[in-house]
């Protein structure tokens, strides 16, 4: 059984709706937040950086996603000192 175009449209529409909500929240929230470069000492610590676990986290996700029924939402590299 192949998906109909309306099934696909409905599925991607759900994702697009969530992305739109996130975008509006982003526009409202992030524009008025400002951490100056000289205040980034703690943000630059590896403990504050998403995705800093790199390969080990990817291998763990590979193992776990094969033993559980769900997938996605894993951390993306970001945050930290903002110096990339």
């Amino acid at each position, binding site marked *: 059984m192949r998906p109909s175009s309306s099934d696909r449209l409905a599925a991607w529409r759900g994702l697009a709706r969530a992305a739109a909500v996130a975008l509006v929240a982003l526009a409202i929230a992030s524009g008025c937040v400002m951490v100056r*470069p000289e205040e980034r000492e703690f943000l630059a610590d590896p403990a504050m950086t*998403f995705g800093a676990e790199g390969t*080990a986290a990817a291998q763990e996700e590979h193992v776990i996603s094969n033993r559980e029924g769900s997938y996605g939402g894993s951390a993306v590299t970001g945050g930290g000192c903002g110096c990339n």
Partner: protein
Amino acid sequence: MQLIAQLRALPWRAAIVLGAVLFGLVAPGRAGADNGEFDAYSTLFYEFGGPLEMIVVNPRASLRVDPVDEMSLRVSYDADIVSGASVAVVDAPAAEIDAISSATQLNDFRSVVTGGLELRSDFGAIRGSYSYGFENDYRSHSFTIGARTDLFERNTTLDLSYARGFDLVCNLFQPRNQDPVDRRRLDSSQGCFDDQDADTDALDIDLQTFQGSWTQAWAPIFVTQLTLTGQLVEGFQSNPYRAVWLGRAAAQENHPQVRFRYAAALSGRLWIEPLSGAVQASVRAYRDSWDVRSITAELAYEQSIDGALRLRLRGRYYTQGAAAFFSDDYSLRPRGQYFTGDRELADMETFMAGAHIIWTLTPGTEGSDIGPFQAFRLMLKFDFIHNEFPNFRYGRAAVPNNNSILTTLGLELVF
């Protein structure tokens, strides 16, 4: 012994030669600057309890070189070496013994090679990669593209990626119009992907994955990340080796051909200045078109000890609802046209706790000299996992192999 033989067969020599060549290309010209990184990791997953032990060894070697500041090239090799036992016919009737006693031995070796490129500028980065995976009964081609940008004085990072996968899975050749309840399971991978073999068939699986993330620094000690993932999988998604008892006979499990999957995860990290450590928390919600729903919560604390040493402790809880077509007994309680023997589609809970420790050595640390390298990093990680399957049975027996350990040893060299 089989596992040891498979480990010995790893193409380590090829990886070392490739690494040496790439290192030779960049090392002489840019001494003193970060030119790249080599890392070698290996993960061991051991699931135990009763006769259904499973061992998965996942070694990985990766090399990144930066010919210029604005560009990175990556190559990596991954392997999955699986050895264990699995139940061929789930819920088959037995007078004296349960179905676990009919478990069959499983050995598999999967290899994945990946090549990628990233281009950076002051505004962000774009990246692309290609992976090819192969094993006796599976082939995969995967292309990924992504882009990242920093906004608002780099307090905001947006990242988008799209991946397209073209996979092939081996199955027993069966007429396409055959009734699912008459389909037989694949006994072994012998003859798979052999054009001369008329007993096997190669079936398509198409994957599309879209992911977007928003990382936001809210204060000098607080940062969050929101990640949204959507995935569409079309094609043969059953385990070709597994059959399910349907009352009068067993048939190869029959999953829907299409699966839409969605996940949203929110993570936060808070710096605790008096402790010089960070509290890390995340929650993830997941749902798909097979009506599997799950929630994941994780809490961790990471502490720097004496500069070079870092310790991270964490706990993770996962709960999942069964797929709409899951039944623990299809002869008594059928759930429509689909049937599965996959415990990953049953109700389940996972409890996970563990720690990792990272030791980083840089030139001058404790008077050390690490030659041409900018940094040397050693990582050891250990987790214990316990699963609960309240509704899943092998015959009359509960799942025995519901405890596992996951341990990783890693080495990174920055040059």
